[in-house]
């Protein structure tokens, strides 16, 4: 770039271009949300048959177009904004140098060299591009050289930014067709990475989130960010934003949806390659990819249930293929930020991405019946929280060990604190934290020492929660609720077998023991020899079973109507 170009460059034109892309990205978001949250639920809730299913497929594909449009043009907007910032800085530097030259009475030549008024014949600099040479007496020459160097550096800075961003922006040309393939999302993942690298190399300024900040500090950081910086973060760092406890649910959802789409694209592309090339050790990677794709399928399937039996929009509050070992999926039925009642549920042994579908369905049912219990004037959000390495049933990674609970406690506490921060404080929502099976040990470990910001704590089929008595959980013994599937093989094995490892105190008490001191809820009539996974079952007519109804009443704060075990 010539210095004359930089000097005259109207950087506001870049601002105008960025604003158009911002509008397009917003239109994409609006379209995607409108289709997912209004059109699809409207069809699902009121229509059925082949035509309705075919229409839903078309709506889904159109929503993909809008999503692709949103993410790609959001990325373009961010890149143009950051380019504008770089060029403005370089331009300010150049203008300062030019003013300095003028003040000194120097002449800036067309090649960027600087001549003094007392200039004699010089032999240096004629070939130097874009500034850097100076002519004149010694003292003047020194000042002129300094100015020439400034001009050179400013132009160099602008040229580098121009080259870098031209390369990035060229990648972001729109697809020429409306079929959004895994290859397109794979490209988007690469485009995001390249854009991030460009921003780092160019030294673009983005206010960083507080290092190891508490959820409340994260929230404050986000609240103080301008809209533009927020958009830039979402475009460049979706994985980080999606994982940041304390941020608003809709922002995390947006980031995680983008992250899920690009991960799916990347993984499908990689899987096709693996299956073709079969490099050594490929099977392990194939299994990981297949497990992750199953998890993504479960998430998408939940998105597609919005509107069925009144199910509200889902908010994806966390997603990562690996997470802390088993992958991360945190998904809310309904917006927790505005919910009057919030339930955060931790699944147990063997929970992972590939099996999360069952847990998501359980929370759908809990949402439905908690909402009924809460009444039409109160809103409910039920959250499936898988962000810990749940134990498997195999040697060395088995559920008798407490380390998985120890390691899961802190992330659960942070997530719960973050939810509370985003809701606006401790009194903004009535919060129940729930744990099934081994998940109850995670909840107990997190609540130990009265450090979990919950109003109620609820356990299903618990093998022990690492505390001796209900009062040690910090919510008051009368707000601790447990349920057991008595006289069933699996549930009895888990609870009584786990007691020795997770039961609290010298007497190894578990939450369904009377001496533990909490409320023991009624499970209802016996439903067969296996019951450990049946707490959330509905009857054939869609009514809740006794266990599900009781849990729903706790979530809704309707304690008086919870039936306790006699």
């Amino acid at each position, binding site marked *: 770039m010539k210095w004359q170009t930089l000097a005259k*460059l109207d950087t506001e034109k870049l601002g105008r271009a960025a604003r158009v892309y911002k509008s*397009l990205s917003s239109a994409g978001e609006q379209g995607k949300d409108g289709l997912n949250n209004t059109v699809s639920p409207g069809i699902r809730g009121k229509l059925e048959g082949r035509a309705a299913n075919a229409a839903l497929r078309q709506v889904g594909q159109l929503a993909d177009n809008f999503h692709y449009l949103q993410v790609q043009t959001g990325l373009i907007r961010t890149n143009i904004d950051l380019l504008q910032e770089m060029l403005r800085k370089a331009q300010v530097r150049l203008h300062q140098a030019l003013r300095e030259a003028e003040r000194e009475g120097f002449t800036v030549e067309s090649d960027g060299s600087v001549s003094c008024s007392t200039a004699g014949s010089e032999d240096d600099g004629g070939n130097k591009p874009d500034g850097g040479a100076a002519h004149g007496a010694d003292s003047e020459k020194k000042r002129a050289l300094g100015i020439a160097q400034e001009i050179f550096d400013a132009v160099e800075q602008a040229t580098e930014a121009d080259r870098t961003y031209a390369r990035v922006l060229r990648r972001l040309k729109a697809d020429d067709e409306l079929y959004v393939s895994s290859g397109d999302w794979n490209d988007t993942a690469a485009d995001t990475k390249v854009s991030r690298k460009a921003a780092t190399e160019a030294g673009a300024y983005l206010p960083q989130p507080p290092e190891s900040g508490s959820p409340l500090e994260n929230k404050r950081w986000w609240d103080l960010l301008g809209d533009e910086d927020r958009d830039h973060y979402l475009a460049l760092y979706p994985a980080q934003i999606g994982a940041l406890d304390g941020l608003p649910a809709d922002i995390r959802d947006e980031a995680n949806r983008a992250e899920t789409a690009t991960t799916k694209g990347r993984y499908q592309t990689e899987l096709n390659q693996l299956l073709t090339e079969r490099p050594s050790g490929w099977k392990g990677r194939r299994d990981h990819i297949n497990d992750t794709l199953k998890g993504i399928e479960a998430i998408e399937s939940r998105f597609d249930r919005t509107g069925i039996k009144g199910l509200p929009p889902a908010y994806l509050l966390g997603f990562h293929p690996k997470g802390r070992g088993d992958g991360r999926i945190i998904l809310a039925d309904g917006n927790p930020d505005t919910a009057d009642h919030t339930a955060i549920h931790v699944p147990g042994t063997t929970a992972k991405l590939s099996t999360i579908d069952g847990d998501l369905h359980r929370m759908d049912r809990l949402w439905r019946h908690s909402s009924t219990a809460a009444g039409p004037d109160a809103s409910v959000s039920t959250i499936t929280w898988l962000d810990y390495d749940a134990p498997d049933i195999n040697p060395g990674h088995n559920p008798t060990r407490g380390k998985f609970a120890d390691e899961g406690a802190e992330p659960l506490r942070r997530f719960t604190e973050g939810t509370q921060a985003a809701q606006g404080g401790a009194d903004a929502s009535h919060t129940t934290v729930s744990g099934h099976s081994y998940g109850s040990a995670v909840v107990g470990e997190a609540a130990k020492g009265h450090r979990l910001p919950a109003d109620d704590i609820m356990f299903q089929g618990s093998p022990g929660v690492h505390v001796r008595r209900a009062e040690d959980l910090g919510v008051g013994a009368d707000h601790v609720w447990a349920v057991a599937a008595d006289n069933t093989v699996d549930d009895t094995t888990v609870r009584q077998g786990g007691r020795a490892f997770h039961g609290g105190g010298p007497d190894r008490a578990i939450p369904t023991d009377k001496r533990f001191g909490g409320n023991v809820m009624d499970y209802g009539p016996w439903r067969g020899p296996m019951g450990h996974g049946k707490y959330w079952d509905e009857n054939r007519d869609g009514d809740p079973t006794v266990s599900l109804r009781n849990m729903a009443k706790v979530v809704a704060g309707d304690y008086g109507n919870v039936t306790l075990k006699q």
Partner: protein
Amino acid sequence: MVGRSAIYDVIGVPAPRATAEPDSSAINDLSPDSHGPARMQLAGQAPSHSGETGSDGQTVSDRAAWRKAAHDTDQLKRPVIRAGLQMAFNTLNTLFDVDGDDGDFECAGVIDDTLNSSWAEYANKVADRCTRLAGSMQNAGTMQHNNDEESRGEFDRLSHRYRDTPGR
């Protein structure tokens, strides 16, 4: 009317005509309160309560649901068209003077020549897809088809239009 720009939906249009084909111009009134083309009303198929079933197997509430879906889908194209129009305008009146002052500003050419035209076109296609899908929904709810299977066929035909081709 294949290939007609969705931009006309905002800047003014040739009068639309009703047709069973999911065409950009097929949408006349996509308001959820609309009861569809006149011939539907003349057929005397407007039962007084939502449980009653017409000859095509649909209830009044089914038709209302299709019309609402059509209306909501059609509305979503407007912001895209607005942004696409601005982009098309920028393409016609290039932001930068790439033959003059901005000649050695590489990004100017990329934005003006490569990005704006491709995204203006993409936005236009997305808007057009909204129109077509809304048209099919409208048809599904206004007795353009005799049964569920015919409506399904119309939706599925849209898939062929937008199928994958080797691209980018």
